[in-house]
Structure formats: structure tokens, C-alpha cells
């Protein structure tokens, strides 16, 4: 059974877990291995060891990071869903594999029973989440709504005919940055149906294998629908192995077995020196996990800052030989790759062929060209035959070129005098059925590589110094935490705040939903930042000018009432400009004192309590999830729940009504939603199309809303109407113009990659954290700030930066300054220098894509390592063999 494909297909006893596995190595499945000895006998590298045993080794470390990950909830125990019983009921993990090109059905959407394309698929949400009755997982898994929408969209894309995709949910929780827009696209453009219902039972129609779902719709009516397939959107759980690990390390777990952390120390476990990240910290999506990983690395590294640079072995690189005046002397090394290449391609014939190619002075073939001893051998041969170009015909440059290039460097040869011919991945592996043709193609590829090697030129990687100081823009919780984290890593920080006081939006807040005191926290945080002599704080300051590049920025500030000019030199930037509460235009806010926001309400509860309140109503999604502002503000649902519980604690007799569209108390916040309901808070759902009506009368505010169960309007009289006003990005118009930082339509800064580089900005050396990136909780802001500091540290810890040598260069003699490159560069790098009157491409800024070389009408720009002759010669060499 193939575990990765969730049992939808089989795998052999020797297997690679999946194509992206690290390390990408074979393993033996001991549960099914017969011990026949075949693999041991055929392995030329003698890498199979049947008697290999688990070994214990001891490593001394200064900090530990726990990231044991998650396991999808196993729904076998929920018998009414029929998982394991009806073949066409799969988990979302199984369906993910069905959609994958590397999955059991190669990306064709089929149902397991008869391998037919499904006509309709139902997703059942909250399987193993938000369920205290049947499985005890009271929390929300945070990711299932998004992945269900995604699976539905991809399934619709993959299926050739029509697909009826239905997502049965209690609340759609698409609360992440840009997630709501994705949900709207699925619903309004792609026709994915969303039904508000928690399905109890799935039953199979034996004749067809179809599945019948009976459910109660919003108005309380019983419905039945038939589907070809059912996908159970399983939640995230902590595997037993992680629980055992936590016990061994003596760290506290929460009641659901996740690592216990505090809101203001989100990645710190109960045991000093041990940090955590990812789903073990709490249910979260990939960007959240990647962010926390950096945060944990930041704190773990902070503990070890003093030891930085110790226990390092430097590699001695000999001085580079100047071969620019020599004729090419090419050495070709052809790899057998065990039998991967040699079993198909006639390697000796390829080697003989290579020896006859122009300028080739040496050829060799190896069993494994990438092995350590072959590197030694290549070094010997380079020296012995005075080679000044090297071609390796083996596998993918993606995985192996850097290693071979190091071998060149070790001989004093410029590492760019190297070329690879991929005769495995692009040849023997795919043409295994026609060995003769594969041998011919290997010769073609080697001929092309040799032709290119002959015209390669040595390149120099420019080394630039790094200024070891960070500029942090914004002195709220995000900026302060980033500053503190960098200070602990022993780096200097200049923290710039536009207001006269530090603290930002947090100064208006009182308690977190967990009950932690935000004011005490922020005071302590500011005191710690002030006490750190590495951190300079500049308040009442704004950014007036900006220039430079990674490692060497220069920013001009205007400080104080006198607008004094000041220049700061720094190596990195952390943008933490924050957000503000939306100023509602809805429901008489600002006109009637009884209509307030959640921030106003928490102030009122702190000051006056709730003893005089008979009834409080709240309306969610004010200034969020509407036409003017489509995004979800993420934090308002928990804010409403927090204040509702607070009222009930102050005065249990106060009636609290929360009028909502979807309650989005993700992760462990769900516990508070449940607590609020248990305390008697009444949650009423309304449709976006029929929002509540509000009338401000002398004896109270009257809110009328259509109750979805009764299907008729009901009226609520309240002493206070609280609007859950959304979040808006701070005004960064000017800043983004000066620093050329991209923002999304909502005004939030954009990250370099939504999932993989969530705190990096597209420009190198610039990082992002806090609500400047998008609405988020304080705990999330703190971990993101620590993450940004961590990413900044990767720059600041280096004495210098080596720039890529693969950059565009202008031939100024032939350039006519037509500015086509200036207009075409996706990164705005080429610039006309007013002093020299020349077009200049800064190699520190160039990304090396080569777009400018293609648009230059005079062919006056060349991309190093991919110069026109270095590409043309490959085409010519290929065609010289005839086709």
C-alpha cells in the first residue's frame, strides 16, 4: 500500500517516498520485504544494507526547535461517513493525491471504485475539527475551508465535462490574506456551491457506488442529494510520536496535544531554550508555518548569538588561474550513474564520440561522477591535462552543477567554465525503450555541451560589503519585536516611528482573548527596547528619501517638528507600518453615541463595566467582505467573542447578540466561541443580501434582521450597538512611492512569495511584518516580527555578500540610449545616468532574467553565462548533427 497516496495505489517494497522527498533516496518497506536479496545484488554502489540498524548518537546543542508536524485526522472512527467502507468516500488528503500529477491516477480526476470521472463531488467540512461530541477535537483546523475551495476549483479545472462541486460547511473560514477573493471567485465565477449544513450521514447506493447525503438546510428542511464522490475535509491532529517526543523533552502540551505557548511568546515552549513552529504550535497554513519557522530560528539563534561564527571550517580556495588567453582545452566526463545511464546508453561509444569533438583533449567515464572519489579524480585530470573547460555528461545541473563547479574552483579554475549535458533525466530515463536512439541523443547533447563550453568565459562574482545595521519602519508591536530580536542577535537597529510615542494600534487595546494584559505587555516591551543600547529609537520621523541596494541602503529621514534632515545608512529594512481600525460609515456611527466599535466597547467595559447594560448587539463584517472592501479582516470575529464573553463575565444578565455572516474563530479561538455560546451569547446569522436594519430610538437601538430559521424578521432592542469594524492598512502611499515597495489593492505590502517567502519583500534585503502585511492577531504579529528579524539576520550575519555573476551587461560603445531596456526590465534596474550619460545596469540589483537582452534593438546587452553566442552555438551544434 502506498501511504503517500493514501492507499489509493500500491508501491514496491523498495521505494522513494515521493518525488520531492528530502533526502531523495530509496528505502525498503520492511513490512513487505521478502528479504530476497535481489536489490543488494544489483546495487553497484553497494548502498543496500539489510543489517543496518538504528543508531543512537549524541549532539550537544544550545537550543532546540520542535517542528514534528501534523497528521490528517483519521475518519475511520466516524462510521456514519463510511470512510473505508464506501470506496468513493475519500479524505481530503486522498483527494489531494488524486489531483496530483504524481498521484495514483496521474492527475486525472477519477473515483476509486470504477475509475470513472465524477459528475458531482461533495466536500464535508469539519471532519475531526470543531467536534467535541464525536472526536473531542474542539478546535478549528484553520486550513480545511481554503483547501476544500482549492480542491473544488482544481477538480473543476481538471474534469472535462461539468462538475457539480458542493462544499457543506458551518462557516466558511477564508480569513487569510487574499483568501476571501479566492472564495468569491469559486462561488461567483466557477460555480462552486456552498451549503450551510453539517452533514451527519453518508450512505452508499450499492448499484452505482454513488453516495446519498441527507442534510438539513438553513431553513430547517430535510434535503437529499446524490454525489459521485464524497471528500471528507479532515482536520489537523498531532501524531502520537510528537506527543511522546514532547513528553521526553518535558514540555507542556495543551488539552488537544499541541505545544502549549503564550500569546506574547508564540513560538516559545514551556521549557527554556526549546522553541516550536508549524502545526505543532497550533493549526495553521503554509505561510503561517514558514513564518513561525523563521521566528523559532530567530529565538534559537538569539540564544546562541555569542557563539556565532565559532566551530566553522573555512574552505581554502586556491588562486584562480587566468585562462583567458589560452585556447579551450576541454575535458569531458561521461557518467554511467550506476545503470541509470549505462544500462541504456552506450557510454563507451559516447566517450569515444566526445574524444573526437573539436577542442576536447581528454575524456573519461565514471560509475558515479558525483561521488567524492570521482571529484578527486576530476581534480587530478584537470591538473594533469591542463584542462580549462569541463563538461560533465550526467544528470540535472539543478541538483549537481554547484558541486562540480566547486571541484573546478578547487583546481583554481573559474567555476563558470563548466557545462553539463543532462543525459539521464532528459535521456536515458525517458528513452529507456529505445537504447540506440538514446545513445544518439546522448551524443547530440554532449556535442552541444562541448560547443558551449568552448565559448564560456570566466566570470567574477562581485563581492560587496554589508552594513550591519537594520532600519525598522514602524514602532508598533511588530517593529518593537523585530528590533528586540535583532538586538538580541547583536545587531544595531534604527527604529523609526512617525508618531511621537511607540506602541502603535496596541495602545488602544486592553486584553487578548486569552486574558493577557496588552498594556502591561507593551510597557514592558517598550522598556526592553529602550534598555537595549544597540537599538536607536527615532520618533516623530518620516521617510523622505531612499536609495541603494541590499546590504547598502541609505535612507533620508525628516525628524521632529523642525523636519530636521538625517541620513541613515543600513544593510536591511524591516517594514512594520501597521494598520488602523476602519472608521465606519454604517449604522449611524459617529451620529449616535450608542453606536460604537469593538475598540470603543472594550474601553467602555474597562472603565464602566456592564452592570448598566441590559442588552448589547454586535454586527460583524463592518467595512469587510463587502463590495468596496472584499477582504476579511481576520480578527473581528474573535474580537466580538472576546468582548461578548467579557460582558457576560461582568454581568451575566446582559443579553448579548452577535449578528454575523460566518464566525471565523480559527484554531484554538474556537474554544472561546463555544464558551461564549455556553455563556448564553446569541449568535444570529444574516445574509449579505439582507443586512440588518438599524433604528436609533430614544429607549434604545433597534436592530431588525431576518432570522434564517424562522425566515422572518426579528427585532432586537439594545443599549449599545457595537460595530465590528474591520482593519485598514496604514496610509503608506508616500512611503511606498519613495521606497518603491509594492502593495496590493487593499494597501497591504506584498511579500516575495505568498507561501514560501512570506516575510521577504520582492526587493532583496527588505522584509515585512505585522499588520502592514495584512490583518492579524498580536501573537501572529509577534512571530512574524521575529521571522522578519530572522530573515534580516541571514543578511546581517555575513561580512559581505557575493553577487550572482549571471547579470546583464551593457556594451556602452554600441548603446544608443533608446531606453527600451529601461522600460522593459520587470525590476526597473537599467537606468540612465545623468552624469556619465550612459545606461547602467547595477549588478547588485539585476535578477539575471535576460529580458533586456532580448528587447535591445542594437543587441548591446548581454546576459553573462547566457550570451548570444553561448546559446547560438548550442543550436548550431545540435543542427550540425542533422535532425
Amino acid at each position, binding site marked *: 500500500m502506498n501511504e503517500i497516496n493514501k492507499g489509493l495505489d500500491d508501491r514496491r517494497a523498495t521505494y522513494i517516498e515521493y*518525488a520531492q522527498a528530502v533526502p531523495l533516496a530509496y528505502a525498503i518497506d520492511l513490512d513487505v520485504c521478502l528479504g530476497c536479496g535481489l536489490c543488494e545484488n544489483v546495487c553497484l554502489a553497494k548502498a543496500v544494507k539489510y543489517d543496518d540498524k538504528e543508531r543512537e548518537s549524541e549532539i550537544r546543542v544550545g537550543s532546540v526547535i520542535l517542528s514534528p508536524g501534523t497528521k490528517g485526522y483519521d475518519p475511520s472512527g466516524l462510521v456514519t461517513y463510511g470512510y473505508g467502507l464506501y470506496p468513493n468516500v475519500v479524505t481530503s488528503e486522498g483527494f489531494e493525491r488524486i489531483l496530483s500529477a504524481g498521484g495514483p491516477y496521474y492527475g486525472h480526476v477519477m473515483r476509486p471504485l470504477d475509475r470513472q470521472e465524477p459528475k458531482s463531488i461533495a466536500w464535508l467540512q469539519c471532519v475531526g475539527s470543531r467536534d467535541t461530541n464525536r472526536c473531542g477535537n474542539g478546535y478549528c483546523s484553520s486550513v480545511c475551508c481554503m483547501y476544500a475551495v482549492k480542491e473544488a476549483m482544481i477538480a473543476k479545472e481538471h474534469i472535462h465535462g461539468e462538475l457539480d462541486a458542493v462544499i457543506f460547511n458551518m462557516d466558511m473560514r477564508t480569513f487569510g490574506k487574499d483568501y476571501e477573493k479566492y472564495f468569491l471567485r469559486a462561488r461567483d465565477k466557477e460555480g462552486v456551491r456552498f451549503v450551510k449544513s453539517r452533514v451527519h450521514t453518508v450512505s452508499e447506493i450499492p448499484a452505482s457506488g454513488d453516495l446519498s447525503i441527507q442534510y438539513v438546510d438553513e431553513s430547517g428542511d430535510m434535503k437529499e442529494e446524490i454525489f459521485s464522490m464524497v471528500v471528507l475535509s479532515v482536520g489537523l491532529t498531532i501524531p502520537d510520536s510528537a506527543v511522546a517526543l514532547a513528553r521526553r523533552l518535558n514540555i507542556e502540551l495543551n488539552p488537544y496535544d499541541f505545544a502549549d505557548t503564550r500569546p506574547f511568546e508564540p513560538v516559545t515552549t514551556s521549557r527554556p531554550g526549546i522553541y516550536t513552529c508549524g502545526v505543532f504550535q497550533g493549526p495553521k497554513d503554509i505561510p503561517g508555518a514558514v513564518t513561525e519557522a523563521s521566528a523559532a530560528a530567530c529565538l534559537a539563534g538569539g540564544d546562541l548569538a555569542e557563539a556565532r561564527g565559532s566551530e566553522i571550517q573555512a574552505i581554502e580556495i586556491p588562486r584562480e588561474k587566468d585562462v583567458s588567453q589560452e585556447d579551450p582545452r576541454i575535458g569531458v566526463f561521461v557518467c554511467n550513474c550506476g545503470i541509470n545511464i549505462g544500462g541504456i546508453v552506450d557510454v563507451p561509444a559516447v566517450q569515444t564520440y566526445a574524444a573526437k569533438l573539436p577542442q576536447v583533449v581528454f575524456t573519461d567515464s565514471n560509475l558515479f561522477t558525483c561521488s567524492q572519489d570521482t571529484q578527486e579524480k576530476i581534480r587530478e585530470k584537470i591538473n594533469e591535462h591542463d584542462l580549462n573547460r569541463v563538461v560533465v555528461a550526467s544528470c540535472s545541473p539543478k541538483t549537481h552543477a554547484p558541486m562540480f563547479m566547486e571541484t573546478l574552483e578547487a583546481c583554481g579554475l573559474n567555476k563558470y567554465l563548466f557545462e553539463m549535458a543532462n543525459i539521464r533525466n532528459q535521456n536515458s530515463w525517458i*528513452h529507456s525503450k529505445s537504447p540506440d536512439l538514446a545513445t544518439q541523443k546522448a551524443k547530440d547533447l554532449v556535442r552541444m555541451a562541448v560547443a558551449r563550453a568552448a565559448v564560456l568565459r570566466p566570470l567574477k562574482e562581485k563581492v560587496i560589503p554589508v552594513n550591519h545595521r537594520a532600519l525598522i519602519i514602524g514602532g508598533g508591536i511588530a517593529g518593537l519585536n523585530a528590533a528586540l530580536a535583532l538586538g538580541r542577535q547583536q545587531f544595531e537597529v534604527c527604529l523609526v516611528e512617525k508618531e511621537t510615542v511607540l506602541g502603535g494600534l496596541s495602545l488602544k487595546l486592553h486584553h487578548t482573548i486569552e486574558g493577557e494584559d496588552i498594556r502591561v505587555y507593551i510597557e514592558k516591551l517598550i522598556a526592553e527596547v529602550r534598555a537595549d543600547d544597540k537599538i536607536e529609537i527615532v520618533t516623530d520621523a518620516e521617510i523622505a528619501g531612499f536609495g541603494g541596494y541590499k546590504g547598502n541602503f541609505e535612507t533620508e529621514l525628516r525628524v521632529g517638528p523642525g523636519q530636521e534632515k538625517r541620513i541613515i545608512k543600513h544593510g536591511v529594512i524591516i517594514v512594520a507600518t501597521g494598520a488602523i481600525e476602519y472608521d465606519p460609515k454604517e449604522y449611524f456611527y459617529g451620529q449616535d453615541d450608542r453606536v460604537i466599535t469593538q475598540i470603543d466597547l472594550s474601553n467602555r467595559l474597562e472603565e464602566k463595566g456592564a452592570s448598566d447594560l441590559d442588552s448589547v448587539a454586535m454586527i460583524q463584517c463592518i467595512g469587510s467582505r463587502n463590495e468596496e472592501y472584499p477582504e476579511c479582516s481576520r480578527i473581528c470575529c474573535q474580537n466580538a467573542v472576546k468582548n461578548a464573553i467579557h460582558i457576560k463575565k461582568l454581568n451575566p444578565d446582559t443579553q448579548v447578540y452577535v449578528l454575523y455572516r460566518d464566525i471565523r474563530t480559527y484554531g484554538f479561538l474556537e474554544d472561546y466561541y463555544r464558551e461564549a455560546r455556553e455563556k448564553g451569547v446569541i449568535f444570529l446569522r444574516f445574509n449579505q443580501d439582507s443586512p440588518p436594519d438599524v433604528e436609533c430610538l430614544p429607549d434604545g437601538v433597534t436592530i431588525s434582521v431576518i432570522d434564517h430559521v424562522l425566515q422572518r424578521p426579528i427585532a432586537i432592542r439594545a443599549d449599545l450597538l457595537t460595530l465590528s469594524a474591520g482593519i485598514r492598512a496604514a496610509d503608506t502611499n508616500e512611503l511606498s512611492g519613495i521606497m518603491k515597495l509594492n502593495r496590493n489593492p487593499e494597501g497591504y505590502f506584498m511579500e516575495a512569495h505568498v507561501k514560501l517567502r512570506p516575510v521577504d519583500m520582492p526587493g532583496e534585503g527588505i522584509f515585512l511584518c505585522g499588520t502592514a502585511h495584512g490583518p492579524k492577531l498580536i501573537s501572529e504579529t509577534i512571530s512574524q516580527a521575529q521571522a522578519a528579524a530572522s530573515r534580516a539576520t541571514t543578511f546581517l550575519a555575513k561580512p559581505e555578500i557575493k553577487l550572482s555573476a549571471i547579470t546583464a551587461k551593457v556594451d556602452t560603445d554600441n548603446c544608443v540610449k533608446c531606453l527600451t531596456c529601461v522600460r522593459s526590465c520587470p525590476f526597473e534596474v537599467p537606468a540612465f545616468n545623468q552624469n556619465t550619460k550612459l545606461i547602467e545596469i547595477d549588478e547588485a540589483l539585476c535578477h539575471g*532574467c535576460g529580458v533586456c537582452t532580448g528587447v535591445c534593438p542594437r543587441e548591446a546587452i548581454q546576459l553573462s553565462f*547566457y550570451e548570444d553566442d553561448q*546559446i*547560438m552555438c548550442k*543550436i548550431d551544434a*545540435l543542427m550540425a548533427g*542533422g*535532425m
Partner: protein
Amino acid sequence: MRLDYPVNIKIILVPCTGKVDVLHLLRAIQKGADGAYVVGCLEGACHYNEGNLRARERVEHVSRLLEEIGLEGDRVRMYNLSSGEGPTFAAYAKEMTEHIQKLGPNPLKKWAE
């Protein structure tokens, strides 16, 4: 995945399809290649923002030039896929090969030597 695709496909590596020049494609056809195609990231998902869109423009330009001199314009093509789509890559290789086989050999081949 080791997916089989026709042996007549030979790949030339470029950092981004935005680096592919009109001249590169023309050179291949001039030297007798029966077809040439550019494989880039999905539109909207270029690693360098917009290189693949420029590549498409250039492929279309070459296509028009070929038609002007009396050759079939779609001896050159542009395909888009993501790096995770091995099966799609193989499918495109097959599709292009079959398409070129229908067109027959490049008439310039006899002058190419």
C-alpha cells in the same frame, strides 16, 4: 517520473523564457530544425514577473516571419506549464512532435548544410 516523450526533443536551458530571442528561434529553423518551441511558466506565474509573456510575443513574431517567407508559422510554438507538471511537459512534447510530423520536414533543411 521518467515519463516517456519523443527522443527528437532536445532542450536548451535559458534562465527565463524572456531570454529567448527571435534570432534564436530563427536560427534553429534556418539551420534545419523542423520545429522549435519555448516552454515557460504559466502566464501570471513567471518567476521574473513577465518573461513568459515577452517570449509569447516573440514566438508569435517569429511565426509571422515564417509565414511571410512561405513556411508554416506554427513550426514555432509557445507552451506554458508549472515546474510541477511533468506529465504535461511530456504531453506537450508529444503534441508538438505529432504536429511537426504532420507538417513534414523543414524545407530549408536542404540548404542548411
